[in-house]
């Protein structure tokens, strides 16, 4: 039984981190209708920020989280201005914009790889290898802190979206871009800000990832498929859906990993994706049938 609870808690903690990783992606999709395949690559960029801050100056990754978020948000603004602004302004969001994010992902990977080589890295502050014991249950502190912080950030995001004027603007733009513009919302600014926030969330998630997983530039390919399964299961454009899907799938994957084998735990996400496409393509909370 304690083994069960242990796996459950681990699954939930990782679910929190995945939810954070996926929420930025969902936010950008909702506002700009672009599936940002470069999101995981930018998460890894955030991980590198935390890694080098720790290695060079001994800065704890959790402390470097806000800085990574700010740095990545600047990267996000630049990316938006250079690459995505034109796409976002055009009336139709096409698959070409997804391919564009794909090419950005390759550029980010290439840049990171050239600068930092392909060596596997992991940040190792003390708590990354520590654990706390509650009775029989063994909880690694690294995962625990990452999970709790992720939840905190997601809650913050939810509050901003529901109650702030800017949150209204984002929700309006997500639900009906034309109507929002006609009511005075500067949709281009909203897109820019949402993109920056989304990438900032990626940076934040990256700092947490840096001590929970080992990473290297090419790892983002694995993350793309995992995050995508969250977004599809949750429903494109629904942050709540992504968060729920993250917890659900992480817990299932944790059990699969514990009972069947760790190679197969990642399969859980990919198989879930296919099952959802078969059974309920719009996911839990998505718009049906499908956006073209």
């Amino acid at each position: 039984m304690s083994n069960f609870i242990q796996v459950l808690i681990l699954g939930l903690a990782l679910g929190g981190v995945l939810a954070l990783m996926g929420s930025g992606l969902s936010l950008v999709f909702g506002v700009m209708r672009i599936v940002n395949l470069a999101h995981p690559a930018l998460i890894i960029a955030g991980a590198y920020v935390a890694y080098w801050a720790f290695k060079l100056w001994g800065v704890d990754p959790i402390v470097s989280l806000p800085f990574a978020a700010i740095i990545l948000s600047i990267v996000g603004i630049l990316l938006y201005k250079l690459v995505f602004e034109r796409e976002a302004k055009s009336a139709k969001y096409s698959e070409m914009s997804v391919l564009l994010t794909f090419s950005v992902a390759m550029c980010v990977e290439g840049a990171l790889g050239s600068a930092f080589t392909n060596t596997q890295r992991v940040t190792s502050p003390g708590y990354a290898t520590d654990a706390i014991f509650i009775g029989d249950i063994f909880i690694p502190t690294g995962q625990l802190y990452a999970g709790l912080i992720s939840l905190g950030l997601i809650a913050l995001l939810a509050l901003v979206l529901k109650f702030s004027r800017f949150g209204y603007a984002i929700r309006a733009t997500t639900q009906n871009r034309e109507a929002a513009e006609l009511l005075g919302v500067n949709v281009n600014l909203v897109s820019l800000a949402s993109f920056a926030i989304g990438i900032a969330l990626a940076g934040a998630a990256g700092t947490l990832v840096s001590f929970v997983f080992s990473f290297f530039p090419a790892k983002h390919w694995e993350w793309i498929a995992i995050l995508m399964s969250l977004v599809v299961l949750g429903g494109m454009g629904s942050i709540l859906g992504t968060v729920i899907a993250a917890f659900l799938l992480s817990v299932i994957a944790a059990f699969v990993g514990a009972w069947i084998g760790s190679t197969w735990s990642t399969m859980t996400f990919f198989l879930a994706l296919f099952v959802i496409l078969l059974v309920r393509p719009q996911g839990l909370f998505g718009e049906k049938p499908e956006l073209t």
Partner: protein
Amino acid sequence: MDSSNVIEARKKHNDNLARGNDKTRATWFPLTLMALLLVLPALQFLGNYNYLLHMVLFTASYAVMASGWNILGGFAGYISLGHNVFFAIGGYFAGMILARYGVSTIILAPVAGLVAGIAGYLIGMITLRVRGPSFIISSLALVMIARILFDNWEFIGGANGVALPANELTVQWAKLPYYYAFVIMAAFAVWVSYRIKHSKFGLGLRAISKDEIKAESAGINTRFYKVLAFAISAFLVGMAGAVWGEYLTYIRPNIFLIILVSVNMVLMCILGGKGTVAGPVVGAIFIVVFNEIFVATLGASEINILATGLIMAVALIFFPLGIVGTLAKHHRLPKILNWD
């Protein structure tokens, strides 16, 4: 203002909105090119041109795959980022049979293609239920699943793969069978693309790519068309995979199922012009040449990936219709490149 005047003016207004058609084509060019390619290996009598043959062979193999991808991605508008799954299916099917029973993959290629095509059909029945971004995502997930499966399946050698016997020809002529196989396959792929484009099927696909809902309400059986396009494109890619394995004398997941292969297919079509017949071939030539230059100057490292990403981004932003497409749009397409 008079009723009949208005009606006439309306008709003229509508006629003005319709655009004309461009019917220039130079069939002699691809045919001449083909003839040249068929005789090229004769250079081997004069010296060691193995590198050149390899380059042409390599380009031809990608021309097949890119043309195959184009049928789904260019004609129907469904972007697949995981098409190398069929490359692997074809490669492994033919490769395993070669390893166990000694049957040449060149003979097996059509069968391997068929197997890949059937897989494409089945997979398409599932993944083509969704459109746009969700479909792209599913194609990525597909390649990830395939990678894990192939890496862990002992029967096909797992992550280490299976070594294949080389053919018995001398160094001077060893490449020849594969060379001709790929060149003929490329011609076949181009021919298939052309025939599809000029058929009712192709028209339906184009309608689907522009506006699927309207296509459906116009009576087109979109599901059948899409799945068929998927299957045909898988067939072509699978055939290429079959021969590629034997050419490399090795089948291994990290040859067939790396992201670079699928990126190349997509990039070639984008750079060349997706939706055109000549586009994938033009794109294949460009990318192969670019790659050679990059590897020669920068080395096969992460910078290569950065460069590929940049090329793709530039192509998508500045000429999304590709070389052939953009030239055609501005009515500057040289006739030799108009294979549509």
